[in-house]
């Protein structure tokens, strides 16, 4: 047993680094703030690496468990632990933080310290969400992420940032407040415990399960986001600075998917089964309808935002098929979407930094001036379209396979994404990158510099690695997914 409280470090190292960055104060010390932020992000990633080394993929239950009483009055524990699902998400999160710091290195010029600090704090809080084993601890981390994100969108965002940030905040708060009441109800029902393990075991009558499920659904569906509560996302994404979009797409959306796996399914399994038709329907609407919406976007960021919603539809679809392949595919899809959408937002960011426009119409012929960039962009666009050999293919394929087993028409509807996804992504790519140089501004573009090359190359490697050799990812997911499904298969009706 490892005696170092690794998970505590994974959570608090970035948060403390964030506090330190904030302490550098005004923009006079911007350079210092950037350096500390980078060191903090690297340290945050470094402390998450021993998790891989010490992780036993064959073990059941939680690993690296820590537990101390936190609020004895309500029997709330500071309880942390991870399984394969959380491990992958924590690594993705710690890794993305480094990219975000590098991506904002030059572009952010005002209030640098606050910007970097917000991301570091955010990163630590999200690690907390993925590692929490106590429902109230989870809730605190889950909600606390709203504060830095609100600031990030509102301060460094685009022209309509204020509307977007307030909408983002109130939408997500609406969802989570109902979850709070549900948690309090469960606390009463379980005789005074917020421990996830106890809540998982708690027998509940059907009506209660349905009400609890719906309360969780509102919270997580807003986060994912599922159709029809997705409308905050395009606004938030479009207005957020590049780093904000990356974190939102790569990590923040996963909080919802993760919530379904940790809360909705195991706490209310019977309700999950009963309502799976609804969930599948909502997911398929997201996949198909939002895919079509993405097709007609004229703003690149908005297009990627809609594409995110469509891809997240696969995640929720996979989860509610109650099949090993489907759930595993859903988690793989979450990780892959983290890489791919993050990379796409970074690509748009690279162009936006140069031309200050996100409109597809303002571009054209970018390949002539930025060939290296165009190559990277191509790879990520292909991954977004689900090209075999890239990470985007693996998760979607697993979910579609699983859907075929359940119902052919589910699979049919889901598979349309391979067409729509390719259509909207590649059409956008074509209009932006190929063709003759559209205007004088494009003619003056410079290709990517070393800093940008670095983060795009790392992401490209990851996308290819996950696409060509997904076995290590599946290996860590095998046991937790099997355990989860076994738990969900058992009725919890008293």
């Amino acid at each position, binding site marked *: 047993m490892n005696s170092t409280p690794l998970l505590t470090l994974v959570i608090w190292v970035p948060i403390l680094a964030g506090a330190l960055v904030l302490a550098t104060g005004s923009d006079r010390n911007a350079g210092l703030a950037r350096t500390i932020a980078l060191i903090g992000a690297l340290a945050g990633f470094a402390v998450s690496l021993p998790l891989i080394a010490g992780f036993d993929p064959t073990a059941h239950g939680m690993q690296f468990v820590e537990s101390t009483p*936190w609020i004895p009055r309500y029997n709330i524990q500071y309880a942390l632990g991870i399984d394969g699902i959380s491990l992958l998400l924590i690594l993705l999160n710690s890794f993305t933080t480094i990219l975000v710091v590098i991506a904002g290195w030059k572009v952010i010029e005002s209030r640098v310290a606050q910007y970097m600090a917000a991301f570091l704090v955010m990163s630590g809080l999200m690690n907390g969400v993925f590692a929490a084993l106590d429902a109230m601890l989870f809730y605190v981390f889950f909600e*606390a992420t709203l504060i830095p994100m609100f600031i990030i969108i*509102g301060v460094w965002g685009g022209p309509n940032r204020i509307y977007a940030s307030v909408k983002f905040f109130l939408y997500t708060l609406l969802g989570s*407040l109902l979850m709070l009441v549900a948690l309090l109800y469960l*606390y009463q029902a379980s005789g005074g415990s917020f421990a996830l393990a106890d809540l998982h075991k708690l027998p509940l009558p059907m009506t209660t399960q349905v009400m609890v499920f719906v309360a969780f659904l509102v919270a997580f569906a807003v986060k994912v986001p599922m159709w029809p509560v997705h409308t905050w996302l395009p606004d938030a994404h479009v207005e957020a600075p590049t780093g904000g979009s990356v974190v939102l797409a790569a990590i923040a959306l996963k909080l919802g998917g993760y919530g379904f796996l940790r809360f909705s399914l195991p706490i209310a399994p019977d309700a999950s089964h009963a309502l799976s038709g609804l969930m599948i329907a909502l997911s398929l609407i997201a996949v198909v309808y939002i895919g079509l919406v993405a097709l007609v976007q004229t703003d690149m960021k908005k297009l990627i935002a809609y594409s995110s919603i469509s891809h997240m539809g696969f995640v929720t679809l996979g989860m509610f098929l109650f099949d090993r392949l489907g759930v595993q595919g859903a988690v793989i899809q979450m990780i892959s979407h983290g890489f791919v959408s993050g990379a796409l937002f970074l690509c748009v960011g690279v162009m936006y930094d140069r031309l200050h426009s996100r409109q597809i119409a303002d571009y054209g012929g970018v390949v002539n001036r930025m060939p290296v960039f165009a190559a990277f962009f191509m790879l990520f666009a292909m991954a977004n379209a689900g090209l075999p050999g890239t990470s985007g293919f693996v998760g979607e394929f697993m979910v579609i396979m699983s859907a075929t087993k359940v119902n052919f028409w589910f699979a049919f509807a889901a598979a349309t994404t391979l067409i729509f996804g390719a259509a909207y992504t590649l059409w956008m790519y074509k209009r932006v990158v190929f063709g003759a140089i559209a205007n004088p501004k494009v003619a003056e573009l410079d290709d990517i510099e070393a800093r940008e090359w670095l983060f795009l190359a790392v992401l490209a490697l990851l996308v290819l690695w996950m696409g060509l050799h997904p076995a290590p990812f599946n290996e860590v997911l095998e046991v937790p997914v099997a355990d989860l499904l076994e738990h969900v298969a058992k009725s919890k009706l008293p």
Partner: protein
Amino acid sequence: MTLTSADFLPVWPEVLMLSMVCVILVADLFLKDSQRVGTYALSLLTLAGCAVVTAVSSRPDVTFAFRGMFVDDPMSDALKLMVYGVVAAMLVYSRSYVAARGMYRGEFFTLVLFATLGMMVMISANHFLTLYLGLELLSLSMYALVALQRDSAASTEAAMKYFVLGALASGMLLYGISMVYGATGALQIPEVAARITAGKANMTILVLGVVFIVAGLGFKLGAVPFHMWVPDVYHGAPTAVALLISTAPKLAAFAFVIRILVEALGHPAVLAEWRQMLILLAIASMALGNITAIAQTNLKRMLAYSTISHMGFLLLGILSGTVNGYSAAMFYVAVYAVMGLGTFGVILALSREGFEADTLEDFKGLNRRSPWLAFLMLLLMFSMAGVPPTVGFYAKLSVLEAVVDAGYTWLAIVAVAFSLIGAFYYLRLVRLMYFDEPTDTRPIHSDGVARLLLSANGLAALVVGIVPGWLMAVCQRAMQASL
């Protein structure tokens, strides 16, 4: 009737406070305006002295004095210590503010300390008349404080409204008390409870009395529909006085409510009566407070409506009717006092001679002008909105837990719906501070001690939020030992 020394032990803090106020009143006559710092220091010392006496004489059990007129229990000790802290912080925050407005005089300090004494008596009263005595001492000092800025029309108007409505509320309360006396034949709190339990009370008259008492309490707390005075008084009163009105008296009012409704009228049959009324008051307060606050452009008015909604939340804890709920309400009111103190503290820090930083406009771009003050205000606003990890969340959490525990899950859902609406206007202030450009670029001067204390105050909203366990335990222990 003879008084023994045992009678005086529990009232030591009150005796000390009263003697010191008299000393300050006289001593100030001999001080020149330039030496007024002496009065200031003496007032702070008095509060510190009372705190020491209260802490030292604190006992884990319940002691009665003056033939049951007065009680000293863990709840009263805890609340009194909070009151001293809040009043002391108020004096520190408002020092430069009152000095700039010609209110830095002996009257200000003596009135503040008399109000504090009134609160102490309210907190420790064990008899309806003692309660009333404390309440009137507090109220009369407050009316005078609101009107202290003599040449301000707004202050005078606010004081008039406060006085007329306050007198009306006192009248209702007194009328209710007389009916309770008529129904039970007793005025001592445990005696009233005992007679009701023994079935010797005339229930019809008692319930009628309860209606008047709840109305009177509603006035004092500022709960809807008895809230009319709150926005005008907050708006019109000097900010320093508004700070005092919005914080410390809420602690005393909480004790007041507990003494009357729980200790005297806590019998299940009576509880069922006042619970219905409190449910209505709570829902109406949360609804009207939160929705009306959205429309305000004056920060003090907005905070007034915010207070109304917080009082609604506080009532939720009380109406749950369990010790659990009372300790949640106590935690809530303590947290609320800290948040209100900090918020008004920031307004005071931004105000200058001849300028009140009390409109939302004045907070525009604060992050550019003073990142630290903006950050403190951000913490306080998120705490008011109840977003974790700030302490305001745990206050809401504990009250909601008590409400769900008492079987009112629907009420908890109503409460969270209104806190969502409430989040909007707290968020608006954060938005103005962080997302907008400043319209006022003059530098911010505030004195060092106040700034330091304000920093501690703002950070407390975060730090107590990360480790909230101890304060919850304090409230729970105090409640369990006192009831």
